[in-house]
């Protein structure tokens, strides 16, 4: 059973009834497999001219079993929505590995793998969805890389649009139900992704729900490029995203005031998938919080009526997702503010 026909309607109906669960970290799980350079290369890239260990996105081509196993673990833990393993699968991020040409294929295959897993576990009571992940890339369109020239940029808006367009086409082809523009640390990058998505939808005559998730990177309560949460919301609201939220940096405890602020102003669904606390290189997952701690913190967000979709980012595992699923299952979801009263 696939959900592709009208995911937005189906999701909206479900979101009226309960909080939906997004999966947890992909990178943290991949690390547990302790894959080496040869695993990353697989047969496809055995003779590739550069080392590609650490290029998690390529694993959808070279170690699909690993990715499938991770998706399944999250679905078993209760995730309603799983994210494709495509966080860095743009031509821009892949070019650092000399693999820009593989970007489109990575997106197609990653979406297919996730689609397979979601379909296998979907039931009428608990349909599962695939969100195509679009990461920020490793370049920022708003920050100068050159100290003596504040006007310099190492990426242009047009280059970002082209890269995102290719990724989006791949994700749609592979069967993603929705798009998730995530870990937004420079809103101009996110706007390029939204621009590409809008153009794609216009061209194919079909829309996918789009979720946008920003990242507050430091104690100032702003994105890396300096926007406050409301300024960020004002920038992305014109695209009428299906959901808006925050993920990654800080962890739930420190994210609290910003998710509250966003929940107050956003006239759309709100999602939140924090890291398992702050980075702690001495712990197994690389992060501080146990599943119980993360679940306790996000449960509070749910009880306050701030969120519609909850999940985990860096350092979270199927155990975290299971704990979150259990702890919020009877809590009423946030009532979505109507856009135009």
């Amino acid at each position, binding site marked *: 059973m696939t959900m592709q026909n009208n995911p937005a309607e189906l999701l909206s109906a479900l979101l009226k009834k309960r909080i939906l669960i997004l999966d947890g970290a992909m990178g943290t799980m991949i690390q547990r497999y302790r894959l080496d350079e040869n695993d990353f290369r697989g047969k496809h890239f055995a003779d590739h001219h550069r080392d590609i260990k*650490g290029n998690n996105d390529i694993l959808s081509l070279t170690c699909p079993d690993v990715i499938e196993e991770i998706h399944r673990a999250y679905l078993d833990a209760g995730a309603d929505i799983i994210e494709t393993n495509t966080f860095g699968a743009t031509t821009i991020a892949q070019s650092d*590995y000399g693999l820009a040409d593989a970007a489109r294929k990575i997106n197609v295959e990653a979406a297919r793998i996730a689609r397979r897993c979601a379909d296998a576990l979907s039931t009428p009571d608990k349909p599962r969805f695939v969100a195509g992940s679009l990461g920020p890339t490793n370049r920022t369109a708003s*920050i100068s890389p050159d*100290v003596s020239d504040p006007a310099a940029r190492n990426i242009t808006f047009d280059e970002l649009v082209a890269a995102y367009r290719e990724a989006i086409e791949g994700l749609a082809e592979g069967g993603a139900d929705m798009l998730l523009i995530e870990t937004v640390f420079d809103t101009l990058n996110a706007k390029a992704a939204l621009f590409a998505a809008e153009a794609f939808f216009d061209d194919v005559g079909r829309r996918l729900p789009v979720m946008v998730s920003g990242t507050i990177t*430091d104690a100032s309560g702003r994105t890396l*490029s300096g926007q406050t949460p409301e*300024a960020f919301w004002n920038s992305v609201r014109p695209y009428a995203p299906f959901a808006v939220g925050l993920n990654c940096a800080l962890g739930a405890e420190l994210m609290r005031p910003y998710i509250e602020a966003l929940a107050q102003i956003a006239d759309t669904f709100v999602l939140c998938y924090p890291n398992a606390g702050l980075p702690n290189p001495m712990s197994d997952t690389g992060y501080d919080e146990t599943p119980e701690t993360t679940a306790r913190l996000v449960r509070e967000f749910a009880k306050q009526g701030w969120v519609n979709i909850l999940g985990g980012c860096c350092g979270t595992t199927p155990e975290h997702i299971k704990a979150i699923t259990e702890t919020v299952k009877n809590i009423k979801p946030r009532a979505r503010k109507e856009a135009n009263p």
Partner: protein
Amino acid sequence: MESLSNIKNNHLKMTASLSRPLRLSGLEPLNIDDDSLFVNVGERTNVTGSKAFARLILAGDFAAAVEVARNQVENGAQIIDVNMDEAMLDSVAAMTRFLNIIATEPDIARVPVMIDSSRWDVIEAGLKCVQGRALVNSLSLKEGEKEFLRRARIVRRYGAATVVMAFDEQGQADSFERRIAICQRAYDLLTQKEGFAPEDIVFDPNVFAIATGIDEHASYALDFIRATRWIREHLPHAKVSGGISNVSFSFRGNDTVREAIHTVFLYHAIRNGLTMGIVNAGQLGDYDALPTDLRDAVEDAVLNRARTDEKNTTEVLIEIAERYRNQHTAGAQAKKETWPEIAEERLIFALLNGNVSRLNTDLEEIRQTIGNRGGKAIEIIEGPLMRGMDIVGDRFGEGKMFLPQVVKSARVMKEAVAYLVPFIEAEKDENSKSNGKIVIATVKGDVHDIGKNIVSVVLQCNNYEVIDLGVMVPAQKIVETAIAEKADVVGLSGLITPSLEEMAHVAAEMERAGLRCPLMIGGATTSRVHTAIKIAPHYRGTTVYVPDASRAVNVVAQLLSETRRDAYAAEIAADYRRIREQHAQKKGATLIPLAEARANAFRPDHARTPPAPKITGRQTIANVPLETLVPFIDWSPFFQAWDLPGRYPDILDDAAYGESAHQIFSDAQNLLGKVVTKQWLRAAAVFGIWPAYRERDDIVLHESGQTLRWPLLRQQYQRPEGKPNYCLSDFVRAQNEGNDYVGAFALTAGLDLEKQADVFAQSHDDYSILMLKALADRFTEALAEWLHYQVRTRFWGYEQEREGASIDYTALIAEHYQGIRPAPGYPACPEHSIKAALLDWLNASEIGMSTTESFVMVPASSISGFYLAHPDARYFSVGIIGDDQLKDFAERNRLDEATARRYLAPNLS
């Protein structure tokens, strides 16, 4: 008083029950709804409206052009209008460059931008540069419905809102009727055909000049005001804007009158629903403060009122205008910044606010003041500028500043340094341009470089030469570059967790290559604890964690400071050692079975085992002349014993502790002289080298059927891949691996101490007693170092003996030699009970040494231990052990388990 900025328009009859805000943003949001006050759009960054700005842009002076934008915002502009429509200009390039620059100026970028051009390609170029929500100025029906809707679609795709000009295929609307007809048509097209949100439409019903002398122009202002009201009442949620300065165009050159016209025009337009206006934000007047005659004349012209005296309104205005020429009346005063009084504080203010406007003047002032008292320009960097950067670091850490502001501060720093460099150069004896060379890289497997780039920028701003190797850099390349470039510091960055392991690998490779320069570690997932435990142990050079970019300069400055370097390195080493010890004691260190730990033992290259000793068997030296020991004294622990933190000799120059250190040291030297000449202390040693072998984890010494068995402990916690689980016995051969030797020693320089201490006690001279004991400890340590040297060079003979002057005492004190002398109680052999058997074996009672029941040696200043000579022999910490090793140890020691548990308590979790 009703000033323009607080006139509300909410008395208007709105057709919609609730207003929908127009949501714009820069770094901060700007929401404009019916409750909002009039919104100022700054007009000065417009080449068509400001000759001064046009000159700057045409001359390519973007730095000055940016100041124009800053002034606008400081004077209250809530949006800035940017226009680059000038025939002599590459407008697309100028728009892009200007918007990119102001994006990096947080106090400008906080407000939204109005991207203003009559050229569509320029507007689109601008939209590609702004992360916030912008306003396009403007769309119109000039080129027909199709093009209008096409562009509207693209505006939406860029997430922007738009101004729509009252302009159609027939031209610009100049009557009330044409204005409202075009606006109605545009509104319907946008909302019905394109799905444009009505609150995102801002109409500009054309502000034209009045009082031109042409009769048809007399109603322009009034028609604009009427159209504004009509739009607000008939086109739900739509907003209204206008280019206000146009209205007074006839009075060019008479700013007083122009301001009066703007003030009056706005007063009425706002009351009739004008949402925003493009104005000179610094020059908005106060309606009530205008001279009555001027205000009345202007009001007649603006509202096109017939005068009671039937005079022509324009003529009256022109007449009055002449009287007011160039008398500044109303203009709002430019907001004065509160610059501090003192120049040094102004520098800090400039850094914190990213403001360079007074930088050079202030720097020059301070430089001259410093110069007059014989100081140097470099003091400005080391003093106020570094202090300012420290505050920046603190504020960033507290969340009071955000990243673009920090980068801005770094740029101010760069400008300041650039200004000072020629003076610093001139004052220097030798010519060293850069403060040091730093090789920086994101490690292999990681492509994240934003943090690294920021560190690189900040360091360059502080006059360091940065060699940035980019991302995914293999260890080999980092090491090679560090060697080839003679790097002063290597910096590693990474974001993802696997990078942590790679950093440890790079550290190990640097060690293997023999590098010794400091290593900096940074990146979101790194930490001080991780650096101390997982990275620093791989590398002998100073390894230091840098929490964020703002701290990098301070860390590098200390690492490379000629005066601070050693003390800083020692502080870090001590701090990290403490972290490692704490961590080792923490519960939950993953233990592996003893058998597994043994299987992962260290296996030295037995080919490198030192040759048989020249002299074996027991030796006694009953009285070592104290003067031979003096050069072997390591004074650093002496100061630590007096709670003076720091290394000798740096501590003597320390700002905080130097004076006390000097006092203590001079007292010590005084007493030392007497101790040596009057022989208040006596130094003696027993030692020897015996055939020995490894058996399980024991070291066994033997001589004519007698044996001394030393049961040792092995590291049992999970070690990183490729790292062995050490035990001291690993450095000795097993019986089947060939002959090997181990030395043992017991020594003291505390003999006869009590005699002199009693003398001091009689005169209640407690200070001298403490000093004497401290010296006894120093002499004992020196004796251990001296004896180890004798053993290595004369008795074992694997090290070349040197004559007096050629001995490098500093190297000896720093333990730069082959072989170790672990003493029971060290982290590598934490168990003390062997001391009794060891002193027995050495017959140490002959020189007056013994142990108590709890294995404390008498006299107090005593050391006993072993000599291990293999070149790979090293100190380490055993850390936590498991119950299996506890039982094994008890068995090897022939102890019951309870006793063994008591002995090993600190190593049990």
